[in-house]
């Protein structure tokens, strides 16, 4: 009796140890970067690297935020009406259309990059414009926005809109003053997912970025490739990850994880 009990306890202990070991593995690369980012020029402890991040790398961070912001706005403008139509209207070949719209998620970044840079060069003449980059980010991430919106709209009973219209609201009023606030958590889930991807994207950016734009992840990539290992680069990478992490944690605190179900986060 006591033997089986202790064996059971040992099993429980081992399984928790295993979980913690895996968790350590997840954060280990981050810890290593964090550790290295505090290394000064003489191998001492220093905060100077982070001053560097907001000085010399400041413009890269600003570009990252700018591109992410514009992409989020475009994502929202494209996904909101599409999700509404997909959920609320009868549609021939609805499933096929949804698959077709979410397919960009499954295209490898390098393929999307080469395809876009070639068409930008030969057809669209977008190589020297910021919008080329923004549109590339949008097409790659709007399915991440679309999916939580579809989930949120499906969860919302149609009676709310009908009640609003019975009470004299026009379609637009019903949409903006009833539906829009009620699917808020779904919208923010989509915003979070696309922000994290766009903010940290380096691969598609590497292909399609105009010469005057270098986003922060691309700068990290470039510096790791050409300048070797520098504490300042590590500091930039750490900053990027911390910003993303704060965004995720804030979202978890405010909305919980329900709306992230079925997406790549949880």
């Amino acid at each position, binding site marked *: 009796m006591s033997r089986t009990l202790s064996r059971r306890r040992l099993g429980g202990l081992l399984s928790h140890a295993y979980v913690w070991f895996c968790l350590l593995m*997840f954060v280990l690369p981050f810890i*290593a970067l964090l550790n290295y980012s505090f290394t000064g020029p003489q191998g001492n402890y220093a905060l100077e690297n982070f001053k560097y991040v907001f000085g010399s790398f400041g413009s890269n961070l600003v570009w990252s935020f700018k591109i992410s912001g514009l992409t989020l706005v475009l994502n929202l403008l494209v996904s909101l009406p599409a999700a*509404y139509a997909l959920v609320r209207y009868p549609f021939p070949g609805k499933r096929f259309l949804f698959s077709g719209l979410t*397919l960009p998620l499954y295209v*490898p970044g390098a393929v999307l990059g080469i*395809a876009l840079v070639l068409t930008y060069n030969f057809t669209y003449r977008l190589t020297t414009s910021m919008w080329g980059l923004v549109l590339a980010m949008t097409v790659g991430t709007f399915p991440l926005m679309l999916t939580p919106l579809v989930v949120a709209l499906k969860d919302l009973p149609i009676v709310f809109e009908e009640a609003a219209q019975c009470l004299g609201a026009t379609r637009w009023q019903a949409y903006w003053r009833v539906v829009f606030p009620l699917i808020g958590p779904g919208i923010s889930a989509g915003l979070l997912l696309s922000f994290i991807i766009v903010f940290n994207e380096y691969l598609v950016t*590497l292909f399609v970025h105009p010469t005057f734009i270098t986003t922060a992840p691309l700068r990290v990539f470039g510096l790791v490739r050409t300048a070797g290992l520098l504490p300042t680069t590590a500091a930039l990478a750490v900053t990027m990850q911390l910003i*993303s992490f704060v965004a995720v944690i804030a979202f978890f605190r405010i909305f919980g994880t329900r709306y992230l179900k079925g997406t790549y986060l949880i």
Partner: protein
Amino acid sequence: MSGEQIVVAQPATLAVRDVRRRERTARMTSLTLVLPAILLTLLFLYYPLVFIVRMSFTLADSFLSPAGPTFTLENYVVMTGRYLPNVLVTIKLAGLATLFDLVFGFPFAYILVRRVRYRDLVRGFMVFPMFGALYIAFGMRFILLPGGLATPLLKLLGAENAQVLYGLPSVVFAMSIFTFPFMVMNIGTALSNVDPTLEEAAACLGARPWQTIWRVLLPLTRAGIVAGSLMVFGWNIGAFAEPLLLGSIAEQRTLAWTLYQRGVVQTDYGLSTTMGVVLLSLAFTVTYFSLRYSRGALVE
């Protein structure tokens, strides 16, 4: 008599016409609402993909020449000959990472679903790999560098002189960490739909733990395992930063990186797009099966 008929027929046809008209307006409205999304994907995904498929049949950078493109099958011949190792190494790395994730991810998902109460904490930790393979590869480089965090551990194992940084294991390890959450997510969803009493029933009927796993849990979570593996494989097939930063020349031959080298650096557009097409068809094959296995028909 005839007047009566008209009275009956008239409202009926009117109602049908009215319904039809309303249906047509609804269809127009819905189409207008989806149109931006359709246009975006058509212009910036499907057209570029068709473009590179067409370009993959042209010789080198002849697409640019004033004489017009030279169409040829040469690129595909080269792909199946000289560049076959690149395709194989891409598949090998993604396959090994998938296997690694499966072996370590299944117990993790099981413990997470059945035993762990601090799930939010685990979620918090699990988002770190999702910020991107670039940071993982960069961090792993520091860890594995001589004098890095891994050195004392290697000394302990008596393998201090082993070449760990530029080699296959470190690349596969970094790729596995990047995609581990996807595997756990898929298996975990499948596991949480399995009633725990089934395991108890198996134990009561005299099954050993491994028998319970093999004959009850694995068959019941097969859909999740297959979906997770395909998803992980699909993500890893386009690996770019990990082989480049952590691998030796052998691992750096992955398609994504070669494609970049050929296309952007050496402007051999024909060959580069051919690699893109090969990579794309690999990814789409995987996606097709993973969508068939995941029963998530979201919009119906």
